[in-house]
């Protein structure tokens, strides 16, 4: 039970980072922490007591194994997170070229 609470605490730390930090790169890192926390939570859900890794090899009996479905889903989710991070970093680099600063309180030409 305690590991789930710690995952949610990690999620909240990432959320604080996205909300309160002023540097664009720190916001991107906060987004990475949020994705990491959700993926970790998803994998930990699949744990069964005294389970072993769900890999079937020749001449081996499987008595009890952890749930393999969340592991496949988290693989997809990590790749999605990679794509989003790459896109946001590319936008951030161009943003620096146009505005000359990484401070998000100064990048506010769109108002109203």
């Amino acid at each position, binding site marked *: 039970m305690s590991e789930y609470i710690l995952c949610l605490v990690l999620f909240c730390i990432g959320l604080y980072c996205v909300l309160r930090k002023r540097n664009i790169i720190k916001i991107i890192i906060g*987004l990475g922490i949020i994705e990491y926390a959700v993926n970790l939570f*998803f994998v930990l859900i699949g744990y069964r007591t005294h389970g072993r890794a769900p890999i079937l090899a020749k001449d081996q009996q499987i008595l009890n194994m952890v749930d393999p479905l969340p592991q496949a889903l988290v693989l997809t989710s990590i790749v999605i997170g990679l794509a989003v991070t790459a896109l946001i970093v590319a936008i951030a680099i161009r943003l620096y070229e146009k505005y000359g600063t990484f401070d998000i309180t100064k990048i*506010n*030409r769109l108002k109203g």
Partner: protein
Amino acid sequence: MLPFFVIIPLGSAFLISLLGKKIRKFGDILANLGTLSLLALSLYSTKLVLAHKILVYKVGGWMPPIGICMVLDGLASFMLVTVNLVSFAIALYSVSYMQKYTDKYRFYTLFMLMLAGMNGIIITGDLFNLFVFLEIASIASYALVAFGTEAEELEASFKYAIMGSVASSFVLLGIALLYSYTSTLNMADISLVLAQKGTGLMVSFVAVLFLMGFGLKAALVPFHAWLPDAHPSAPAPISAMLSGVLIKVLGVYAIARIFFNIIGINNISLSILMFLGVVSMLIGVILALAQWDVKRLLAYHSISQIGYVILGIGLGTPLGILGGVFHLFNHSVFKSLLFLNSGALDYALGTRDLQDMGGLREKMPITANTNLIASMSIAGIPPFNGFWSKLLIILACIQSGRIIYAICAVVASILTLASFMKVQKYAFFGKLKERWQDIKEIPAFMRLSMIVLAIICVMGGLLIIPLFKPFLQSAVDVLLAGKGYKDAVFGAIR
């Protein structure tokens, strides 16, 4: 036949990315052919649904709940027709509009990817598959908003991307919690397990997480802050696509499917939906009164009209859901038309500020007339289609006893009329300024797509008459059946 809704846009996206630079006009031809064939397929699917009521396709032959299934019922076919019709018109429009930008073939790649994601969300029957297609459509839209790479577009795209990614992680957290409670991912199976196990505190928490995540994609208040920056900064066909279909498919359709069919509704969740809808309506229209940028004004009106749709769907009565679903279709058509008009103004004049324009009525007749038709639709003037759907929603509010919500809806409608009269007065009537003396009318493709959408606006009111009513009624029946979704799906699988 069902996977073709995803195969055709995906295949054409990658073919355009591969060959678009070498062969001229390859992107235009393939994109328009693709959207036209998708439109034909979706019209055919409505015919199928009328005959069979529900169709299930097991991907790869694997039996659900182990495998992924695709479900085509009334709501799905209705949304498919809406999305593909608007995308076809926008693909026609962007043949000539995107000449001003470089790398036109990359635009078509991203556009078809976004369309593939949206089609995938509509027809899937599996919860994690919904998340994957949600991410495909969202990432394509983040890239499309930043397409012009000016300073303001990049800033708007950055804010939209960060907020959208946080919302997607809320959705993923909700899916993880729901999986831990029910240990299955198939939508019908989740509904079955929840009926047996009973809903407790965990399911309420998951419902709140889903409402936050999908509510941000649908631009409900208080999650609307990205929309007034992102929609004006995108190129005009992309603004029409975002505001016309993306916020509906990613937001309203997902909320409706999850809350009505999977988790189940009770009075508390309906009241929350209605309250959020009414607040969106009022805040959107009040903030729109002060705008001078024509696209920003349209973006605020999108927030308000989505509030109407959520209010209609949140009522829960048959008349209310019919009004909400009809207003969803109408809003796709006339909001896309309005954004395409503003794009035409931008193409001809180079500015979006209302105070700079004036008296364009004799120079650009097609734009002026279609804008007049769309403005009268959105303000709810008979006999255009907006009037019928707003009337249905207001009648349903009064019928279920919520007079205050009905009064708010009428007030919002009057304020909408006021701001669109402002647009008409400043842009099209009045005196012609000297620097606009020798502008020309816009190219042929743009005119064609605007005329097509305007004709649908005028004839949209006909959807209520009993000849065409089954088109909407099948969507309403699916939502009203609620938990009956799982029985229908399991009945069709065996």
